[in-house]
Every structure is written in structure tokens, then in C-alpha cells.
């Protein structure tokens, strides 16, 4: 394979053996450096494969967990490349050292890669154009591209990319390819269907759970039934008698049963007799909340994350002081596809395949644990049945590798829903105390104080910067129940409490919630107190748009509205939730949502993300909670860990994006945080009941 390197090593073009070209792009194309870059944010990479038979394959570099990047990332390349979207193929890329941040998290895939992927497409387009111009002996400037062909208008000549690929691969790589004028975008900003749509609706094997490989055994694992318990004596005699069970192996704090089918593995696992010893305290959610409550009654022992003016002094002479507490339960991720992973550890090499949002971290950890160099470990991920942050943890992949190493055979580890519920890294339970001093018509001070399991709560909201007196403080609570990232971490709880409390403030001041926010943004812009990390103008853009969409201020009999707005992952979202009463219970009828997320890549996918975030927002606010009872999770499956059902879903969700020429910002998460408050505020309007505790359904029962 002949390769051409540009002087700066920016880009590598390889001639494929069958004719054609492969373009990979990297800011740092040196393997030694690239190694350290796996976890670096904003390190770009992607590739294109054009073969002589006319196939054009675009590789989507980041894991697809339902956020749509297997479609949207290649769209960016295709736009600049000038190919017919219907004719290209898309594949998920394996973990590749040249590819930068191959992570699905922080709503970062599109925002981290926009310019880089455009450059990738433009580079290939310029080289193909040059190859054609040379062949025709005409100036490059006279050539244009369309649908995978270079065209010379004057002579009417055309050549396909496939024909040009080999010649193009031999050319010098342009240092600074010209990017398209965004005005000429044809694909970006349009509605494009998910690239796997047909395979999904026809039930093709796309997911980790569908993995079937030569010689593989299915495994189920018995893990500690409660946090704080460790593995004691194991009796596997009965398990080994089950037909189909082949092996039982011990790893760390768990025992795996390997069998010829999932069912046999499960029966084997259930037949294990294991002594689990309680070596630590077995914790209870009820105690967590009691500790929270006590802690919040005292001054926070930590330094405030922000402290403007003097919130205590502001109470003097206040007409009214609000002082309320909000309570938020632990949550499990509950992604639809229970965890699984394939691993084959053999002869000093490891093959890994399965659902993860962080393939790089999985490989690094396995490399360390097994003492096998990273270059001898291959890892790639299939399409994944949801992420929600669960697979930012490496446990499922690592466990599978340890089992394969121990059992010395290829293994597909399958988790049950009960396994997922008891072995998660939970959205931590939190409690928040909010205090505000009010004059007869003004908000004088805002004091938020929170505590949560694990490293604790932090962050502030847009009131900071608009108020003379503002204080935010947070503290953590040590626990042996594990915590992790749950969609829009931090923001999902903070937005609920802050925007619900804002509604309480509006009610107390008799202010219109929309007008009052606009007043605050005006103050934050014109008389900024301290530093702000948000753009009041962008906040205003979404608040005004959603007010217009929902005809805020008009009244429909029987419809009660709530409003909320939040900024996260670079994007601004404002929502209006309409509820009506059905059999004495509030039900969401319609949701209006305005989003400012910079340029939208795939309109259909973007809308789907926003609609999904809204449904997730309603669902997590209304129904689920995890309760620890002596270290075990009481809600073991979907019969008790509840999600929204079709009957609870709004029939309409109206989404609009603020027109923007700015680079795209996050979209997989930002529409979730504001929803719970908008819903709580609507329910308050409907029932007069202020919901300061999740899940709401329990409060309404």
C-alpha cells in the first residue's frame, strides 16, 4: 500500500490495493503522540474510503448510542465531499489511535468535530478535483463537483470519484482546503433518515446483544446482591449439572457461568450457592435523606462555589423570605439494551466488541489488568441500545475480558435487567435548600445549598450575574453506593430545583414567569454582577421564541401551563408544558420547545433528540426512583422501576430551532434539564400543589 504524507503530516492518503483511496485525518499523526490523545477533547479525526468499484464509505468515528451521530457525523463529511448521500455507505469506526476523542458523552460528538470533518471532506474533494483537472488538462478552477463526480462544464466532461480515486491518492495533500460557503450547504440542515433505519425496522443484527462468534459461550454473572457485600464461599456443583453449562469461573467479586445458550447460563447462574459477606455498612436511602436534611439545616462546611454580595444581609428589611427544600431520588439508567460484551482473550491478544461510550478507556483498563499491550487489543462497538451515561463506565467490557481470560474461550456476557438495576453507577440522590429574600416586587437575594451522594452537587444558574446577592454552595456525602453520569449530569437536577424555585419566586412576586426571566437576562447583560458563563442574548432568543410558539399569555380553558429555561452543553433551551386534568390527574398534553444550538446538522435527528429528551424529562420526573434497602436496590425491574408509557406521553411536541450560523453545540442532552421544572410549574398551575420531591407521580397519588 503506497502512502503519501503531506509535509505537516496532517493527513494521510493511502492507495488501496484494489485501486482507490483511503483518507484519514489527524492533527497529530504521530503514533506516539496519538496514544495520549485518546481521551483528549477536541482532537479531530475521521475517514473516507473510496474504492475503484464506486463504493464510498464514510466512517462515523464516535459511538452510536441513539444520539444519531452515525448519521450526522458522516453528513458533515458528505456535504464537503460532494457525494450523493443515497449512494454512500456508513460504518462505525473501530477504536483507532489516529481518531481523537472516540467517546459518546457530554453532547460532544458533533460540536467537537464539525470543522474537522468538514476539512476531511474538503481535502478529499480538492484532491479528486485536481486529479480530474490534470487528466483533462484544464485549470482546477474550472472544475466543480456534484453527486460524486467532477464536472468540467465548458467541455461537458465528467469523471466519477471512483475513476479518479487512484490518481487522487498519489497527489500532494492540500494544506488548507477551501471549505464550502455554508450558504451552499445542500445536505447539512436538511432532514435525513437514520442510516440504519431499514435495518432497525426489519430486525437485522445490529446490537451488541446480537453478537455471535465462532466458539463463543454465553455467560451470566453472579455479582454482589448488595453494596457492601463481598464474595465468600462458592458451591458450583448444582450449576455444573445444568445441561449446557460448560464452566464456572471466579473473577474479582463475582462468579461467571459459561454455557452454550443464554438460558442455560442463566439457569446455571441461578443454581450457584454463594456466601456473600457483609464487610461494610449496608446503606439505606431513607438514611441518606435524613443525613441530607440534617446537613442542610447547618451552614455548609464547604466554600461556596459563588458568593456575590451578602445573602444574609439581604434578608433584613425583606418583605418576605422563602425557604424550601427539594428532594431528588437516586436513579438507574435503564437503557433498553441490558449490558453485554464480547471478549476473546487468546495468545496475548484481545478482541473486544460491545456497547461502550468510552472504547478507549475500556481498552486501557483491560491492557493494565491483563498486562497486554494496547496495540494487541482491538475494540469496536456496534450500534447501542441507549447509553444515557451508563456506558461511560467500563465495567461491562472489563468484566467480559477478565472472564474470557480466566475461562480461556471467547465469551459473550449477557446481563439481565435485574443485573443492570443492582449494578449501576447511579444518578446520585440529592437534596437542595433554596432561600430567597423578596421585597414587595423584587427578588433581593438567592441562596442555593445542595448535598448529594458522592462528590456532591455544584454549579450555579443564570440568576447569578443578574442579582447583587447570590450564593451557591454544594457538598458531597460519602457512600458505598456507586454514582456516575446520568443524561445531562448536574444539569438535570439543578435545572429542576432552580427553575421550580424561580417559579415559586414569580408566584410570590406575582410576576409573569416569562417576563420575569427576560428582566433577569436584561440585568445580567446590562449590569452584570461578577462573571457569567452564559450568554443572556441567547437565553432571550429561546425564551422569546417559545413564548411566540406557545402564544404565551393566552388562555385555553382546561389547559395549565408551566415554563422553564436552561443552558447546558453550549445550548439554550426554553420550554412550555401544557397539562390538562384527566381523571383527577394532570397529564401532559403538549410541549413547546425552542432551542438555540448553533447550526443544526440533521433536522430530523435533531428534532428526534429534542423530542426524546422531553419525553425522558417527563418520564424521569414522574415515575422512577431507586431505593437502597440494606445496600440492595428495591426496584429490581421495570415493574417497580417505572418509565413513562405511551398513555403518559404528550401527543404533540413542537420543536423549533433558532436560526444560527454558529458552529453546532450540544444536542443529545440540553433539552432534558428544563423539562421537569416546566412540568412541575404546570402541575402547580393546575392543582396548586408545588412538587418539591421526585418522582411526581408518588406525590400526586
Amino acid at each position, binding site marked *: 500500500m503506497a502512502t503519501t504524507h503531506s509535509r505537516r503530516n496532517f493527513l494521510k492518503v493511502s492507495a488501496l490495493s484494489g485501486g482507490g483511496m483511503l483518507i484519514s485525518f489527524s492533527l497529530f499523526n504521530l503514533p506516539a503522540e496519538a496514544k495520549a490523545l485518546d481521551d483528549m477533547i477536541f482532537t479531530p479525526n475521521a475517514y473516507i474510503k473510496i474504492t475503484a468499484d464506486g463504493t464510498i464509505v464514510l466512517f462515523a468515528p464516535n459511538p452510536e448510542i441513539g444520539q444519531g451521530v452515525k448519521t450526522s457525523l458522516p453528513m458533515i463529511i458528505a456535504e464537503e465531499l460532494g457525494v450523493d448521500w443515497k449512494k454512500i455507505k456508513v460504518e462505525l469506526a473501530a477504536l483507532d489511535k489516529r481518531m481523537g476523542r472516540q467517546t459518546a458523552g457530554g453532547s460532544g460528538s458533533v460540536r467537537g468535530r464539525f470543522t474537522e470533518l468538514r476539512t476531511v471532506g474538503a481535502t478529499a474533494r480538492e484532491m479528486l478535483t485536481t486529479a480530474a483537472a490534470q487528466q483533462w488538462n484544464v485549470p482546477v478552477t474550472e472544475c466543480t463537483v456534484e453527486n460524486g463526480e467532477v464536472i468540467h462544464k465548458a467541455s461537458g466532461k465528467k469523471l466519477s470519484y471512483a475513476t479518479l480515486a487512484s490518481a487522487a491518492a498519489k497527489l500532494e495533500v492540500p494544506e488548507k482546503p477551501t471549505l464550502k460557503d455554508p450558504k451552499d450547504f445542500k445536505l447539512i440542515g436538511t432532514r435525513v433518515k437514520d442510516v440504519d433505519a431499514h435495518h*432497525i425496522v426489519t*430486525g437485522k*443484527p445490529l446490537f451488541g446483544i446480537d453478537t455471535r462468534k465462532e466458539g463463543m459461550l454465553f455467560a451470566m454473572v453472579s455479582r454482589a446482591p448488595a453494596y457492601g457485600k463481598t464474595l465468600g464461599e462458592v458451591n458450583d456443583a448444582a450449576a455444573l449439572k445444568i445441561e449446557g453449562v460448560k464452566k464456572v469461573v471466579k473473577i474479582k467479586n463475582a462468579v461467571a457461568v459459561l454455557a452454550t445458550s443464554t438460558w442455560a447460563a442463566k439457569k446455571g447462574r441461578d443454581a450457584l450457592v454463594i456466601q456473600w459477606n457483609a464487610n461494610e455498612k449496608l446503606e439505606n436511602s431513607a438514611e441518606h435523606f435524613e443525613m441530607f436534611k440534617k446537613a442542610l439545616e447547618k451552614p455548609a462546611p464547604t466554600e461556596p462555589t459563588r458568593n456575590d454580595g451578602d445573602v444574609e444581609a439581604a434578608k433584613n428589611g425583606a418583605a418576605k423570605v422563602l425557604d424550601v427544600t427539594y428532594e431528588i431520588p437516586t436513579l438507574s439508567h435503564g437503557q*433498553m439494551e441490558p449490558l453485554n460484551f464480547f471478549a476473546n482473550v487468546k495468545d496475548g491478544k484481545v478482541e473486544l466488541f460491545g456497547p461502550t461510550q468510552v472504547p478507549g478507556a475500556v481498552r486501557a483498563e483491560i491492557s493494565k489488568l491483563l498486562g497486554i499491550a494496547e496495540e494487541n487489543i482491538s475494540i469496536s462497538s456496534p450500534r447501542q441500545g441507549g447509553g*444515557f451515561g451508563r456506558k461511560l463506565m467500563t465495567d461491562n467490557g472489563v468484566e467480559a475480558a477478565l472472564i474470557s481470560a480466566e475461562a480461556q474461550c471467547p465469551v459473550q456476557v449477557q446481563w439481565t435487567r435485574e443485573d443492570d438495576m443492582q449494578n449501576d453507577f447511579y444518578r446520585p440522590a440529592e437534596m437542595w435548600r433554596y432561600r430567597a429574600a423578596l421585597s414587595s416586587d423584587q427578588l433581593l437575594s438567592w441562596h442555593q445549598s445542595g448535598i448529594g451522594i458522592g462528590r456532591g452537587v455544584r454549579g450555579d444558574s443564570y440568576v447569578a450575574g443578574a442579582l447583587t446577592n447570590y450564593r451557591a454552595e454544594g457538598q458531597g456525602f460519602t457512600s458505598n453506593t456507586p454514582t456516575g453520569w446520568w443524561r445531562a449530569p448536574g444539569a438535570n437536577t439543578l435545572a429542576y430545583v432552580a427553575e421550580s424555585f424561580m417559579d415559586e419566586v414569580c408566584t410570590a412576586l406575582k410576576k409573569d414567569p416569562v417576563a420575569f426571566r427576560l428582566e433577569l437576562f436584561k440585568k445580567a447583560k446590562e449590569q452584570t454582577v461578577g462573571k457569567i458563563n452564559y450568554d443572556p442574548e441567547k437565553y432571550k432568543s429561546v425564551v422569546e421564541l417559545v413564548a411566540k410558539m406557545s402564544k404565551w399569555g393566552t388562555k385555553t380553558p382546561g389547559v395549565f401551563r408551566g415554563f422553564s429555561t436552561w443552558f447546558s452543553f453550549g445550548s439554550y433551551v426554553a420550554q412550555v408544558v401544557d397539562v390538562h386534568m384527566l381523571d383527577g390527574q394532570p397529564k401532559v398534553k403538549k410541549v413547546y420547545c425552542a432551542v438555540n444550538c448553533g447550526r443544526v446538522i440533521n433536522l430530523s435527528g435533531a428534532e428526534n433528540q429534542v423530542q*426524546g429528551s422531553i419525553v425522558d424529562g417527563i418520564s424521569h420526573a414522574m415515575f422512577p426512583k431507586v431505593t437502597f434497602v440494606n445496600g440492595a436496590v428495591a426496584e429490581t425491574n421495570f415493574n417497580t422501576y417505572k418509565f413513562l*408509557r*405511551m398513555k403518559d406521553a404528550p401527543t404533540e411536541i413542537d420543536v423549533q430551532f433558532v436560526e444560527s450560523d454558529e458552529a453546532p453545540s450540544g444536542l443529545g442532552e440540553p433539552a432534558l434539564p428544563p423539562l421537569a421544572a416546566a412540568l412541575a410549574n404546570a402541575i402547580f398551575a393546575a392543582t396548586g400543589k408545588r412538587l418539591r420531591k421526585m418522582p411526581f407521580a408518588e406525590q400526586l397519588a
Partner: protein
Amino acid sequence: MAAINLNVNGKTVSVDVDPATPLLWVLRDHLNLVGTKFGCGIAQCGACTVHLNGSAVRSCSLPVSSVKNNAIVTIEGLSETGDHPLQQAWEELDVSQCGYCQAGQIMSAAALLKRNPKPTDQDIDNAMSGNICRCGTHVRIRKAIHSAAKTQSKN
């Protein structure tokens, strides 16, 4: 283990399995029909929905021995070329996000349309509330069912 004959997607097949095995795992592990998905194992999520004599059933909670010669249809057998009006509507409206729940959703919806060609929103609520979509594609699912119902009534 026992040899069991099944009628799956119009073909008779024979498997040698523990008779207590849920149909779901027989389909997935023994017949390599992996389009039917596992989500909860206790008839709560609908990911494993298949048709038994045309009705939607949760295959995770159906012991294979109880199936007898009743006709099973899985997502792979719903249509020859993936052109069932629901499959078309699902693609047309770009319903899926992660896609994991969608085979089950489509199978539940197909059973609904068979017995009720013009479902109301209320009918859809009733028929589809046994299927969880964690990604929140409910609004599009509802639209796709209405749209498929329209296509069907034209044909």
C-alpha cells in the same frame, strides 16, 4: 432437553431445548432470529414482542413448550422485503433513535392494526403502553401508526 417443533415465520423448525426455555431465547440463541429483543424478561417492556396466531405476545415470558403448533411471526417474518406499511412509515418518519425497542413496537402496532385498522389515539395508548421506549420516540411512533393505517386503508 426435548425436541420441539415450532412454526416460525411460515416454516416448521425443530429445536432441542429445555422445554421451560422462554420462546425469546429459543428464537435468539437457537434459531438465530435476533431481531426479537430482550429488555426485562418479565413481560414489562415489550422489546420481545412477537405474534402468536396474529396476537402480540411477550416471548420472554412464554415457555417454548406452551407454543405448540401455533403460528409464530417475528419481526424478520413480518413482511417479505421489509415493506409492511408500519415498517415503511417507521422509516419514512425516521422514528428510531437507538432502535433497540422498535422491533417490539412494530410487532405490537402490527397486531393492533390487524384487529383495528383505524385506531384512535386512545386505542394506540391501550395497545402500545406495554412497550417501553427509553429514548422517547412516542410522538413519532403514534404518528407512524396513524400514517400506516392510512396507507393500509388506501391499498
